[in-house]
């Protein structure tokens, strides 16, 4: 109890230090706890709605009608250990709908009686589905330009009336302005529309309500028994996992940015704690000299550390809990979903664990060092106690290093992203270290011939290596994130800027039947518009690579990247054939197709698809196309510029081989500037080709741009948190330095330097360091943006330099202000500092 009182008194006596320490830790932890809270709420939302998202316990899904035999196999399998309570068939497909003014791609879903088995619809008023009456979201009417009470829409050449407006459907996920609004109709209405033709993108679904859900093993066995690669088995777990994958990715990346904030906060804590413990040096010596046992002194400071860590952590957690509801409100509006209210026990636990452990891992080496010192050393002016740059000191920080790396992997939720982040962090630290070393040598040389104040400022940088390195790194990270995230967003926005990018098509068409191809070409020729990359599309599935079966084992624990690769293997893929490449693609390795067809036809693979599936040049791949096994030999890898929005494929066959396979056609339509012309063209297209669906590229691109703006905003918010923490680190560092400089200031005054000169020395020190740090981070940020833009989108223009200039200028300005505050006490030091009795 005595120790606790003593420790508390020590903290109360040093109020400023205690306050800065708590705020620093709270800021570092706040972002992390908030994100984890959001992650938990989101996971809870998805898992609680897993069954209603699918609407059933089990679903067979196929692009082809599911044979009765396969349904019978499933029934028999279930009845062995389970019971089928209900089952229904339903279909989903995309089509074009026409309203009063416009046409629009919509998603149709048949709703047989009694379906969905889980969850309920909410309508504005009650009405039954019939051959002519359908249900739809209000969006449909708005987008089709229907005015007043006109609830009539046309698809598949037939007119339908919206009976009820859907307010909410159980399968609704996260809105974000869906590309194709949903329309619900009876099976009879779909039949009446006559939309289902050969090659239409219809999904046939057979849903089961069971006594209990199937286990993973049972699903595996069922898959084997069905033995049909065209049939996909959907479960509530799988459908909930697919929902919001993008949000999970975003959350994981945000987690890494928030980790950067925590890492910066830890640097701040290191300096704050160092300043604190060194200021306690004589006190520790006195305790020991007065007969206090070493363990008691150690316990006293452990208690003090615990109090600091607990206060900082709790403050961070409480701030996060207070701010979260407002943040969630914004998210609810953006995602068009109501988030469940949930007390974040696990996030609080995570915050407590991370806050307490990280502070102790930072503080422990200092405590240990003082624990081992003989009392007389603690009274002496300059002993090895002051030396932090020893190998043994580094060894003491290894547990912290392991903790950070382990936490990176936990947060990134991916071995690949975690490894990349750790490697990037290591490379950044090592290259910063090398750069700082060179910088220090240069500044040391410059200090020889510089004027007094510049010389002193440079010497403070070049001779306090560890401090200089820390200031450099914390400012570098903050600047880099603040430059990189907005610059990358800017680059991506430009890449997707429909108005400035005239090469983007106006719309993209699919479900074009073989017999419609010529007629469609003529239709566009007549209107003076050309079709871009009219390409055949054949559905297929990967079977084997070099004779080895490609299969997915759901019982195995896969990393996120492996899962993605597995999904690609199991998913049906779209294959095409053509002679030459379009403007949006280029061969990166291998050779073009031969003029003649050999024993095995040649196939070209998109380079990233090949990387994910570990396909090499020369590999023989077996496909299933409409039940027939087909082989292809990989002759080249292609790089595809997907943002061109013209038809492109992962796999392209040499011509002369797949021409007779069942196929539909895809095409893009050249840029049409006027919105009215585009609308008219789409209406004419629907009238003549009711089964052909078209996507308005401008609308899709705008939707992506909005989504990216929102993601970039979230990332920028986190980067800003890093920046605020970075400023705190800077303050902590300057304060630590200033406390160590009290003696220097007094001495400089004794030998005749005036306060203004000393102030200039410190301003030069921090400004020079901040200048090199922010400028190099800014250049690095711009280069990284350029490389990202080039690698991902082949974007070769220079990124915007606005942030690259603005951020360093603002940071330099803030640095001067922060350093003035931090050095305030030191600059006031009297020249009689040494002469006090």
């Amino acid at each position, binding site marked *: 109890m005595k120790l606790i009182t003593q420790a508390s008194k020590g903290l109360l006596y040093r109020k400023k230090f205690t306050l800065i320490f708590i705020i620093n830790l709270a800021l570092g932890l706040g972002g992390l706890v908030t994100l984890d809270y959001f992650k938990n709420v989101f996971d809870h939302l998805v898992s609680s709605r897993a069954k209603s998202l699918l609407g059933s316990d089990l679903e067979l899904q196929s692009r082809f009608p599911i044979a009765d035999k396969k349904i019978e196999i499933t029934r028999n399998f279930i009845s062995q250990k389970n019971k089928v309570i209900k089952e229904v068939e339903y279909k989903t497909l995309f089509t074009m709908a026409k309203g009063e003014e416009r046409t629009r791609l919509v998603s149709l879903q048949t709703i047989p009686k009694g379906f969905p088995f889980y969850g309920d619809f909410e309508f504005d008023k009650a009405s039954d589905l019939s051959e002519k009456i359908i249900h739809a979201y209000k969006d449909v009417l708005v987008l089709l330009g229907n005015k007043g009470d006109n609830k009539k829409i046309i698809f598949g050449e037939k007119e339908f009336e919206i009976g009820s407006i859907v307010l909410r459907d159980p399968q609704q996920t996260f809105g974000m302005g869906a590309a194709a609004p949903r329309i619900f109709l009876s099976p009879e209405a779909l039949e009446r529309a006559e939309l289902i033709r050969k090659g239409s993108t219809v999904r046939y679904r057979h849903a089961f309500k069971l006594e209990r859900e199937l286990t993973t093993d049972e699903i595996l066995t069922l898959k084997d028994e069905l033995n049909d690669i065209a049939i996909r088995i959907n479960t509530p777990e799988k459908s909930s996992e697919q929902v919001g994958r993008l949000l999970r990715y975003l959350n994981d990346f945000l987690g890494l940015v928030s980790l950067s904030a925590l890492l910066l906060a830890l640097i701040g804590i290191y300096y704050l704690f160092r300043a604190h413990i060194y200021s306690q040096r004589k006190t520790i010596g006195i305790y020991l000299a007065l007969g206090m046992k070493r363990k008691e002194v150690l316990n006293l400071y452990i208690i003090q550390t615990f109090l600091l860590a607990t206060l900082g952590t709790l403050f961070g957690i409480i701030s996060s809990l207070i701010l979260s509801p407002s943040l969630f409100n914004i998210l609810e509006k953006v995602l068009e979903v109501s988030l469940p209210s949930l007390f974040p026990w696990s996030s609080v636990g995570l915050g407590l664990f991370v806050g307490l452990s990280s502070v102790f891992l930072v503080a422990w080496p200092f405590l240990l060092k003082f624990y081992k010192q003989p009392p007389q050393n603690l009274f002496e*002016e*300059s002993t090895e106690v002051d030396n932090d740059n020893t190998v043994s000191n580094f060894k003491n920080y290894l547990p912290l290093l392991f903790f950070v790396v382990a936490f990176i992997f936990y947060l990134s939720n991916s071995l690949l992203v975690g490894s990349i982040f750790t490697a990037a962090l290591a490379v950044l630290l090592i290259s910063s270290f090398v750069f700082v070393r060179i910088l220090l040598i240069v500044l040391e040389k410059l200090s020889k011939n510089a004027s*007094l104040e510049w*010389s002193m400022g440079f*010497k*403070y940088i070049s*001779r*306090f290596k560890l401090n200089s390195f820390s200031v450099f790194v914390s400012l570098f990270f903050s600047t880099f994130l603040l430059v990189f995230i907005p610059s990358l967003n800017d680059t991506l926005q430009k890449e997707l800027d429909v108005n400035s990018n005239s090469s983007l098509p106006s719309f993209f068409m699919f479900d074009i039947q073989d017999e419609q191809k010529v007629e469609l070409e003529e239709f566009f020729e007549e209107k003076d518009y050309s079709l871009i990359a009219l390409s055949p599309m054949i559905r297929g599935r990967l079977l084997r690579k070099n004779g080895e079966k490609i299969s997915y084992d759901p019982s195995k624990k896969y990393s996120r990247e492996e899962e993605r690769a597995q999904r690609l293997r199991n998913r049906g893929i779209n294959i095409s054939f053509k002679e030459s490449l379009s403007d949006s693609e280029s061969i990166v390795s291998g050779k073009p197709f031969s003029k003649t067809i050999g024993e095995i036809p040649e196939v070209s693979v998109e380079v990233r698809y090949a990387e994910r599936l570990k396909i090499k040049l020369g590999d023989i791949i077996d496909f299933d196309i409409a039940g027939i096994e087909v082989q292809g030999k990989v002759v080249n890898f292609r790089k595809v510029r997907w943002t061109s929005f013209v038809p492109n494929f992962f796999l392209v066959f040499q011509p002369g081989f797949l021409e007779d396979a069942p196929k539909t056609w895809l095409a893009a339509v050249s840029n049409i500037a006027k919105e009215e012309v585009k609308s008219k063209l789409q209406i004419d297209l629907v009238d003549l080709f009711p089964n052909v669906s078209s996507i308005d590229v401008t609308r899709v691109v705008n939707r992506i741009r909005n989504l990216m703006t929102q993601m970039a905003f979230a990332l920028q918010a986190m980067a800003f948190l890093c920046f605020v923490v970075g400023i705190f680190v800077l303050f902590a560092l300057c304060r630590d330095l200033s406390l160590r400089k009290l*003696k*220097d200031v*007094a*001495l*400089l*005054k*004794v*030998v*005749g*330097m*005036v*306060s203004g*000169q000393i102030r200039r020395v410190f301003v030069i020190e921090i400004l020079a360091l901040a200048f090199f740090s922010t400028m190099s981070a800014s250049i690095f940020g711009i280069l990284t943006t350029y490389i990202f833009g080039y690698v991902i989108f082949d974007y070769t223009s220079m990124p915007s330099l606005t942030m690259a200039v603005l951020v360093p200028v603002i940071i330099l300005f803030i640095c001067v202000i922060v350093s003035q505050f931090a050095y305030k006490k030191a600059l006031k030091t*009297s*020249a*009689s500092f*040494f*002469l*006090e*009795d």
Partner: protein
Amino acid sequence: MIVDLKDVTKSYGDISILKKLNLSLDSGKSVTILGHSGSGKSTLLSILGGTLRADGGEVNVLGNDLLNSNEDSLSIMRRKKLGMIFQHFHLINHLNAYENVLLPLEIDGDIGEEQKNRAKDLLSKVGLADRLEHFPSQLSGGEKQRVAIARALVHNPDLILADEPSGSLDEETGKEVMDLVFKLVEEQGKSLILVTHNKELGKFTDRVMTLDKGVLS
């Protein structure tokens, strides 16, 4: 007269440290001020160095009225005419021996070869010619004090204020250091005010005074 203190008073709250203290010193002369701990020796030295203001009286040092001078002019006085030696050496840790000695000259203005040579000569005179590049942490206590002595003399001050220069050193080293101080002060014709509790050192100065109950006698 290089130092002229008349009726100088200084209190800390209710505690009166200096009570109408008088002290005068002619150019080139030296004085030892003796006194026990807490007698106000360091307070007196601080007032003489212009780092602490007296409450009353007249303080004339090196022709400056210290009670009516501003901070900057006190700094200029120190950089031009005053040298100080402390018990705990007080070197700047991140500057090497040569840079520590050169510092007062750098503060005073541009430095050329002449100033650099003077710093080196002085370090040579205090026996540290081979230690120019060494940092304070690489020097012994005696060596640090030698650097501090060289630093106090390098800008050719008129007055040296020394606060227990041998207080942190062992007897033998302390003696060597004091011999050096007296030798250099005499050689260069400087005035010296030495504050100490070591009566023996009084033998080497022109006068010995004792500070007791705030008064010099």
